[in-house]
């Protein structure tokens, strides 16, 4: 048994033993659980992939004369201005003004909110255009100017849902190519796409949310941020396998961090042909090895994690909940799975390569004493299910 304080003391003295979530598997196999639990202080987990429910709050400071922005665009991407005078929220999936979207199907979606976020972190000069109805205290009615992240008072990433615990494997049962947020899917189950870091993924290494909770300090694209709430659609009460690993989406995290501390290679705008824009983000989360149970759960390997195979031509859009079968991540990573007797080529959307890089970067930061662990101030729920949206004719 160790406490957060003991672990942080070891980190401070530069003596902490830190391993990544893939290294820990062999380590425990060699040393045994009891010895390893005594030796190891922290296991680092990570993920890098598209996370649509992301965005950021920007504060521009005041112009002379002042403006109360009522409509605004950054790089021609509409931002939300229903906040105080010069605060805006930029959403990752917002398309650029005049983007033809899917009018010429499949659309390319070359630039949107997520690309603005990438450019912001990269330090590029961006254009702000804002309008206002004008008030006595904020008389200016229009402004067009250029700024970089350094000109802003705040640029705070504020993501309502990141780090899905587990995720679907998407296939296409129809006889035409479909374009989804899970990538391009060829007809008749010719290919499949998955999107999880598997054995490296944060919430798969802490399936019962024993250490990752509200207040947990996390590494977001190089910045030190934290979990500020359970993520939207968090549903900790979904079905689990024998090891307690959810067999579908389940847990999610709402994350925040200062974008001024981020590095651009982990904040990437993505364009999904025929679908839209999303933000790919790199997140690393340390798990304090408080006891043998916590350690045991970080030893989960790709072979033990199941993902549901779902048809995205009909079952997913029609919300039927039908699962074709379950495959594990070891199978997925071979590049081929077999579903109902048919072999399917497998691609991925999340980058294991980047996730591994992040797990190592975070481990190094902790070893150097630059990253301290925090105890959650509230824990994530383990019993909630996701509610559907009911189309009602009358209020009931």
């Amino acid at each position, binding site marked *: 048994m160790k406490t957060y304080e003991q672990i942080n003391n070891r980190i401070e003295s530069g003596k902490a033993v830190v391993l990544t979530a893939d290294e820990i598997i062999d380590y425990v196999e060699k040393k045994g659980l009891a010895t390893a639990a005594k030796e190891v202080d922290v296991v680092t987990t990570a993920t890098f992939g598209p996370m649509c429910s992301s965005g950021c709050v920007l504060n521009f400071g005041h112009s002379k004369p002042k403006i109360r922005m009522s409509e605004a665009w950054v790089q021609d991407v509409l931002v939300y201005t229903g906040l105080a005078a010069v605060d805006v929220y930029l959403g990752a999936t917002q398309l650029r003004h005049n983007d033809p979207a899917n009018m010429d199907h499949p659309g390319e979606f070359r630039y949107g909110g997520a690309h603005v976020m990438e450019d912001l972190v990269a330090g590029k000069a961006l254009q702000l255009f804002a309008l206002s109805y004008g008030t006595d205290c904020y008389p200016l009615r229009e402004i067009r100017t250029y700024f970089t992240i350094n000109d802003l008072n705040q640029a705070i990433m504020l993501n309502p849902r990141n780090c899905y615990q587990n995720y679907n494997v998407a296939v296409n049962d129809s006889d035409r190519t479909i374009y989804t947020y899970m990538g391009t899917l060829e007809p008749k189950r010719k*290919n*499949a796409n998955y999107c999880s870091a598997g054995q490296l993924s944060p919430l798969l290494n802490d399936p019962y949310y024993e250490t990752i909770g509200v207040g947990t300090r996390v590494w977001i694209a190089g910045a030190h941020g934290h979990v500020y709430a359970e993520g939207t659609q968090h549903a900790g009460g979904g079905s689990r396998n024998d090891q307690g690993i959810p067999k579908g989406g389940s847990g999610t995290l709402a994350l925040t961090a200062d974008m001024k501390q981020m590095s651009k290679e982990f904040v990437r705008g*993505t364009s999904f042909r025929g679908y839209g824009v999303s933000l790919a983000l790199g997140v690393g989360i340390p798990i304090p090895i408080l006891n043998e149970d916590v350690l045991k759960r970080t030893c989960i390997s790709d072979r033990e994690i199941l993902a549901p195979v779902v048809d995205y031509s009909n079952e997913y859009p029609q919300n039927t909940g039908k699962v074709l079968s379950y495959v594990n991540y070891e199978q997925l990573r071979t590049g081929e799975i077999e579903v109902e007797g048919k072999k399917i080529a497998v691609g991925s959307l999340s980058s294991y390569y980047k996730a*591994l890089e992040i797990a190592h970067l975070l481990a190094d930061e902790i070893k150097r004493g630059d990253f301290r662990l925090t105890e959650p101030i509230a824990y994530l729920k383990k019993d909630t299910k996701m509610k559907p949206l009911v189309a009602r004719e009358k209020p009931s």
Partner: protein
Amino acid sequence: MSQTITKKLMLFFPKCECEKPIIYHLVKDHNLIVNVFRAKVTPEEEGYLALDVTGTEEDIEKGMDFVKTFNVSINTTGKGIIVDEEQCTHCGHCITHCPTGALHIADMVTREVVYSEAKCIECMGCIRVCPYNACASAF
């Protein structure tokens, strides 16, 4: 007979050279086997051509000397499709859309995605599906 080799080339034809039957002469006068992957004539009437030529080293050299007598630039690194290593996140989405394995996972442990230019047939599949805008065409 000396050994035949295959070389990947990218040719650029400025406006004035677009109408000359250069490829025909490569085949007829220089015994080269030509496999064209992709050709494009821009609205400005400039032409791009990505191709393989197969023949003896000597014949290829002579063929290239012949091409050089026109105002055509030859790019022997043949990069019609460019995969930007800085932009690539090694996500692996392109893998199932690349028919030849030119884009492939080189190391099963790190899962690094590598582009082997020689295997590329310029189908543009990766350009269509790469979410990170890492793949581009030189023309």
